[in-house]
């Protein structure tokens, strides 16, 4: 079952869902709540990519994502006045300004999805990985890709994605404990 705006607010009041800072009333819709863009972004280090041209990554048991991330990307801070211009076909990693927490006992999981106003411009916010498991805690990482033909200026604080909360049928034996638990921007 998907939570409506009223249920989301009740769950927030009871601390069964935690969102910090609390979303403004205008960020709700009937069955979701919008989160906003953080000023932190991870962009590709094209110098490094050029240097290691031809290298092939092999996802699997020996693959270390954080090592890969630190080698090929760098963290930047978006200046609020200038924003960050996402060129056509560009792909960056972004974060929500808000952190969310879904305690195991709350029986809540969620999905992060795009917004139609941005989708119409060609902006995707995830690459086939929308699930937020029960037990997750942290800001949400977004995989932003501009599939449109025109550059899009991203500004911190803009509504960037929506989160849909769903009740699970029972309490999970083990909540989320993957590498992205309490992930940092």
């Amino acid at each position, binding site marked *: 079952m998907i939570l409506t705006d009223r249920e989301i607010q009740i769950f927030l009041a009871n601390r069964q869902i935690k969102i910090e800072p609390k979303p403004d009333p*205008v*960020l*709700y*819709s*009937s069955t979701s709540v*919008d989160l906003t863009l953080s000023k932190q972004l991870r962009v590709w280090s094209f110098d490094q990519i050029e240097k290691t041209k031809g290298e092939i990554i092999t996802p699997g048991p020996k693959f270390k994502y954080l090592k890969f991330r630190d080698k090929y990307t760098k963290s930047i801070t978006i200046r609020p006045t200038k924003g960050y211009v996402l060129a056509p076909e560009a792909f960056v990693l972004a974060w929500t300004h808000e952190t969310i927490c879904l305690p195991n006992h709350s029986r809540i999981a969620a999905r992060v999805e795009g917004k*139609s*106003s*941005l989708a119409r411009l060609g902006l995707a916010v995830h690459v086939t990985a929308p699930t937020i498991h029960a037990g997750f805690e942290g800001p949400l990482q977004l995989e932003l890709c501009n599939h449109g033909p025109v550059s899009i200026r991203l500004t911190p604080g803009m*509504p960037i994605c929506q989160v849909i909360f769903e009740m699970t049928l029972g309490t999970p034996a083990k909540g989320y404990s993957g590498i992205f638990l309490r992930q940092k921007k």
Partner: protein
Amino acid sequence: MSRVKARIVRGANGSERIAYITTAEGVCAEVLLSATQTGTNHILAAEVARDKNNVLIELPQETSSGYWRIWVNKKQVLHQ
């Protein structure tokens, strides 16, 4: 459903309308709607909350700037 004052113009096809609604902060919110969700000078929207001067409404579609809900001055709400 409430009727909320808006400037309505024709959209890209016969069944589409573009509505311009002035928010409580004085910003013009743009939203693409079906003709069935609009009148000549209003849109249909759901009232969610109210304070002394303003009403929080939920629009039938998301605005161009990405909001489903906007605060409007209560004088803009024509009818309940």
